[in-house]
């Protein structure tokens, strides 16, 4: 196995005439947290399912933990799908142990691990409760524990934060960080940028099934240049003529003073801008330097698709079945 437990090369997935994923290539390094970002219906879940060999790609090559099919290495993978569920009549500890057993643990070890995890996450009192009696947050925790109980090398989490309250989101963030600290590779998909910004070493932005960006947050910011927030009595035109200024956007018109967002060209120095402004007699009452946020980058790259209705992929899946004929 290489240092990249997950490698996808030129992956395409078509459902009849509809292409859900187009020529996607990326790899995930061992021990990193890799964010898989995209709007609803961008192809995230389809790609994750292809990684797990639940869905077969139409074209391209996938290598997971050194194998061409995740089926043969399933015991080394933990997967938490976006739409999660538990058997209603099963008890919490039984559920964790059952899925751990399916992923290779012996009955005794699975049971032991289930109780240990429930204790670690403060759910020991609910170990013998039926899943139908658990709150939504508790049930989600149980599902997550079932994903990690067999101590997988690779964790694939599809929208793990969805439906969790802020406290449980924090717990999950910590769990993901802990998993990485113990050497695991983690891929998680999300469209909540704050989590990705806080957790991911690298991320990939996908929209309409196509890769729009792959890299670190600094790389993304560098690509999007410097951004300044200034407050001044001067009109926008006064800034537009300064060297290195690419765009000026009025953020707030305060009557006497206005707030502007200044986009600088690649390589332009904010200090040069400040000097030029002072030399031009512009009075600045605010000068703030800021890089592009992941949210800005995401909106910019995903564009209109970011606000597209949910489950396009699913509809395409059904449509594809028809179109395949």
């Amino acid at each position, binding site marked *: 196995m290489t240092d990249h437990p997950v490698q996808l090369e030129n992956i395409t997935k078509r459902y009849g005439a509809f292409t859900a994923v187009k020529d996607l290539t990326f790899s995930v390094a061992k021990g990193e947290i890799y964010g898989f970002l995209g709007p609803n219906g961008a192809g995230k879940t389809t790609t994750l399912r292809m990684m797990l060999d639940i869905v077969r790609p139409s074209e391209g090559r996938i290598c997971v933990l050194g194998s061409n099919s995740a089926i043969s290495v399933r015991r080394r993978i933990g997967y938490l*799908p976006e739409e*999660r569920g*538990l058997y*209603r009549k099963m008890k919490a500890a039984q559920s964790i142990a059952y899925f751990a057993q*399916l992923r290779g643990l012996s009955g005794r070890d699975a049971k032991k691990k289930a109780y240990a995890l429930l204790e670690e996450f403060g759910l020991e009192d609910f170990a013998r409760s039926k899943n139908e009696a658990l709150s939504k947050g508790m049930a989600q925790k149980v599902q997550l524990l079932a994903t990690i109980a067999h101590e997988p090398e690779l964790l694939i989490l599809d929208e793990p934060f969805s439906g969790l309250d802020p406290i449980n989101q924090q717990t999950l963030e910590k769990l993901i960080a802990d998993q990485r600290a113990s050497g695991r590779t983690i891929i998680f998909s999300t469209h909540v940028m704050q989590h990705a910004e806080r957790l991911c070493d690298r991320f990939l932005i996908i929209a309409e099934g196509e890769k729009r960006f792959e890299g670190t947050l600094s790389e993304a910011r560098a690509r999007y240049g410097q951004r300044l927030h200034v407050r001044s009595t001067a009109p926008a035109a006064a800034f537009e003529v300064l060297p290195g200024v690419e765009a000026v956007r009025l953020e707030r018109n305060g009557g006497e003073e206005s707030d502007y967002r200044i986009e600088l060209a690649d390589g332009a120095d904010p200090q040069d801008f400040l000097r030029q402004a002072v030399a031009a007699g512009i009075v600045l009452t605010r000068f703030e330097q800021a890089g592009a946020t992941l949210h800005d980058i995401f909106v910019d790259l995903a564009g209109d698709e970011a606000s597209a209705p949910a489950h396009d992929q699913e509809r395409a*899946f059904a449509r594809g*079945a*028809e179109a395949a004929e």
Partner: protein
Amino acid sequence: MKQVLLIALREYKQYVLSRGFLIFLLMFPVSLVAVTAAMGLVERNKPVRAFVVYDETGQYADDIDREIERRYRFGAIRAWDDYVGAAVADGAEALPEPFAPAQVNDARLKAFEAAGGFEAARQAAAPLLREGAPDFELPRQQFERVKTDALLQGVTSLEDAEEVLRPYLLGERDVMRAEGATTPLFAAVMVPRDFGEGDEAAAAQYWSRNLTDNALEDLVGNALTSALKRQAIADMGLSEEALDDVAAISAPFNSYRPDRAAEDAQLSLKDRVETGLPAALTYMLLVIIFGVGNLLLTNTIEERSNKIVEILLSSVTAEQLMMGKLIGIAAVGLTMPAIFLFGGLAASATISSAGDSFMGAAIGTLFGSPLLLIYLFYFFCAYAIFAMIFLAIGAVSNSLQDAQSYMGPVMILVFAPLPFMIMVFQNPNGFIATLLTWIPIYTPYAVMMRAAADPPLWEVLGATALMLAFAALLARFMGRIFRNAILQASPPKAREVWRLARREGV
């Protein structure tokens, strides 16, 4: 394989260890015992049905009384047979002949009474009774003819009698029994002056508001018929005893099978059981297939609608998931009959000796012939065919409501052979039997039904091969539907299902 077994075990435990299943298992024998006890209790506590006879001829009331007494004695001997069947430790057959359980007829009744009646029977059985066995109690009389002297005083015609008796028959007034208690009048029998045999004679009348309990009606009819026969015999110059002797004659009659050597050819209870048991098993097969099919359906819908299936599919393949479910639910389907079968065996072993009894014959047939193996083989074949269909329906449905549109045609398919099964049973090598044998989805039922009739081997083998090929093809198509549809968030439309069946994989 471990994953398949884990899934099968979970499916099995989910149903077999469920409270509902355990309660059912417990309740079934308990309710059987309760129903039997209740029936006994009802029989023992049945109120004596009082009736009156208005006989313008003055001849037939005694005949009716005699028939009541005769039937009571028959009932008493049957009760005796049941008693010794349960109370005698080493088999009631050890008792001397009139007291050992046997067919109850006039001849036995005569022999029973000639041997000393119930007093002698009790003495004969005493050394053979189980420890703690209760004493034998004679059953209660069911009918009592109420004297009409006071009731119908002054009545001179059937019409008057009818007028007088109507309020009693409608329950507005009670009659007085011999012991002094009052009771509602159950029925009235009226025998007209010109009652007798022949077209010219008037008919006797039976009046009662109770149209469902026809025991008394039947008894009175028999009594009057016997009386007319007696008169006819007397007219011919013969005695009444001669008529009784003639009535007690029962022709010795045996049935034989031509496919057996002479010494084994006589038809026995075992042969009857061997013929009837496959039919019973076939109906059981139908019920089980329907039952477990529904389990599979609801279970798959639950996994699909609760979104468990994707987690499962990240741990096992779709094929392993299907196989695990099929094995688990098949085991559920076999558990219930197995429990009842072995429970029945255990019960029969403790209650009575196997000997020549029905249970003994059933046990001998089931375990002493290939019937059980044939049953298991065709159970799995029928199960494989229908389970795959139910599984596929579950995979394309998010709710039972979604499944309903598919279930209608499937139910017709499952139960379509039901009306024809009686024809197959009566003519196991006839056209309908042959036709059903060659329709793959009905092959298991038809072959099971014909198992005791030695159908042509080539036909059984050919139809079975066709059925297996069909099952494999069906499994392929239904498996594709399962794989392709199970992960779809919204269930496919009915017209898309065929397309899913043709696609190799998602």
